[in-house]
């Protein structure tokens, strides 16, 4: 039995993050060559942005074990916040995005403080409530937000150049379209999201977060101020959502209160669970799948919903830990 052999200290190294990141980078670089048309880019951009949110949400849900059913609120706050800062205060998009993220961080900190002492379903309920309140505010303050009809968003400008999805640009002599630039931005965002998330998870901070999930008391007695750490990861994941939301707004050019809706929050949490809680790459795969399924199902017209529900159930039944962790396990099993 292998586990009976005493281990030498050299075998206790931290898990290496570079192999995974390299694969991710290669995939992100290769994808453009597989894209047939701009619509494919559009999907990839949306997937990359959503995956970024999911990676952040996974820190909270998958690692720290705190369920949020209201994360769409932060996404929407980022999108509306930056759009309005540009529109009302004439900031340029990038500072607006940063400022919105700071605002969201403060907001998350303020609301997180009282609700994060709740546990389990009660926390879900409270976060759900926050999401609902955010959606109502966006809906009702139509003077500012355009209400249910939505809000046009000024396009992103980089170095003084406006970035239109239909424009074409020159990058070191190579002509690229606006969509491709956007893909680059979204892919970069996702890559950084993953890099930071992996760093965090494999640090003492990350360990403390995971300990919250395992045993809050053990964490406390080890000196972890559990309240403070929950709040921290809540804020971090909210900032992830905010940044993705801002980018989404700039990219799409139009946002509606739907992005703050309960359904959107549910979609985000479903991505995390589907891909695999506590698996950073898992949630990326989860995003790909959850966003692509509807695209494939459109041909089924009326049956779309039935099939979507059925697929979701079947995946979760047979891969209860989520796609990637379950498959990884199976793969290991066969390899041994």
């Amino acid at each position, binding site marked *: 039995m292998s586990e009976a052999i005493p281990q030498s200290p050299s075998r206790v190294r931290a898990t290496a993050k570079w192999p995974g990141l390299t694969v991710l980078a290669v995939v992100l670089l290769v994808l453009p060559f597989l894209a047939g048309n701009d619509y494919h880019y559009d999907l990839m951009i949306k997937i990359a942005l959503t995956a970024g949110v999911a990676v952040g949400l996974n820190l909270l*849900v998958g690692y720290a074990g705190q*369920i949020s059913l209201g994360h769409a609120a932060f996404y929407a706050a980022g999108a509306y916040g930056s759009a309005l800062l540009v529109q009302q205060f004439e900031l340029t998009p990038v500072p607006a995005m940063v400022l919105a993220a700071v605002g969201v961080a403060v907001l998350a900190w303020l609301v997180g403080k*009282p*609700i994060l*002492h*709740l*546990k389990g*379903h*009660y926390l*879900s*309920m*409270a976060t*759900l*409530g*926050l999401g*609902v*309140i955010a959606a*109502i*505010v966006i809906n*009702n303050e139509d003077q500012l937000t355009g209400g249910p009809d939505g809000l046009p968003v000024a396009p992103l400008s980089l170095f003084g150049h406006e970035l239109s999805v239909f424009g074409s640009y020159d990058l070191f002599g190579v002509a690229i379209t606006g969509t491709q630039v956007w893909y680059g931005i979204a892919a970069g965002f996702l890559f950084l999201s993953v890099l930071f998330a992996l760093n965090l998870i494999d640090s003492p901070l990350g360990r403390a977060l995971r300990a919250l999930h395992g045993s809050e*008391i053990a964490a406390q007695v080890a000196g972890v101020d559990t309240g403070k750490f929950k709040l921290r990861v809540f804020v971090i994941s909210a900032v992830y959502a905010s940044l993705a939301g801002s980018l989404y707004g700039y990219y799409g050019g139009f946002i509606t209160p739907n992005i703050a809706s*309960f359904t959107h929050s*549910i979609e985000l*949490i*479903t991505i995390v*669970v*589907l891909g695999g*809680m506590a698996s950073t790459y898992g949630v990326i795969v989860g995003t790909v799948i959850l966003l692509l399924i509807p695209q494939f199902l459109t041909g089924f017209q*009326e*049956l*779309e*919903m*039935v*099939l*979507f*529900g*059925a*697929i*979701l*159930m079947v995946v*979760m*039944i*047979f891969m*209860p*830990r*989520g796609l990637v962790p379950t498959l990884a396990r199976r793969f290991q099993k066969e390899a041994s």
Partner: protein
Amino acid sequence: MFSEFFQFTFSGVTLGAIYALVALGFTLIYNASHVINFAQGEFLMIGGMGTVVLMDAGVPIYFAIPLAIAMAGVAGILLHRLAIAPAKNADVVTLIIITIGASIFLRGLAQVFWGKEYHALPNFSATESINLGGAILLTQSLWILGIAAVLVTALGLFFTRTALGKALLATSMNKDAASLMGIKTGAILMMAFGISAVIGAAAGVIVAPITLTSYDIGIMLGLKGFIAAAIGGLGSSTGAILGGLLLGLAEAYTAGYISSDYKDAVPFVIILAILFFLPNGLLGSRAVERV
């Protein structure tokens, strides 16, 4: 002014009783498995829409209602057998996502086979409303309140007085230990899903004359029911009723006295405030864990 207050109160009580009925459905499954069944709203839908469809097919209402409720019961059992039971060792979040999948699936089926239109069911009583002190109380609200009272008493007795009820609670606390007591945990869970579906469907039928019914009515009612169950304290049937009434009254008073724009937001603020002081809801039991 008093008549206005009464009117808001009646309106709140009606809403509250509806939410309470939905919340009761959550209680049973929660007590058996600690899962929040997001497909609970779909049971309501099956009750209401099933009755409509059967009546359209010429079935008289007094057969249509029990048939539709039975249909929901079967759906509940199937949900357990085909979706919950096979995911044996899945944790609670996974099970919740499965119930979300199930709710989308059921809603989709209803949409394909029963159509997307809204429908109304007739009132249970001939007189639709009664005037009390200048305010109108719907007779259907009395039906809802009455049935909610009966159900909450029945569930309360079930959990405190019967071995089966205790076995159900034990199953949620420690499944392995429960099976070491000879409790057939699978059967218990199946029963919980079945009964919960029946309660949900019955609720769906009695609220339909007020709320109308359609393939997607379960989304909103399910959500409100979950909220009501959580403020009341998950797992407590009396709490479900209290939570429902509180939510309904908060909505009606906000709409009546504060602002209808923020009618859905203000109750949430109240709820968050309640949870701040009572993190396990009004009547929820504190998790017992010693170190």
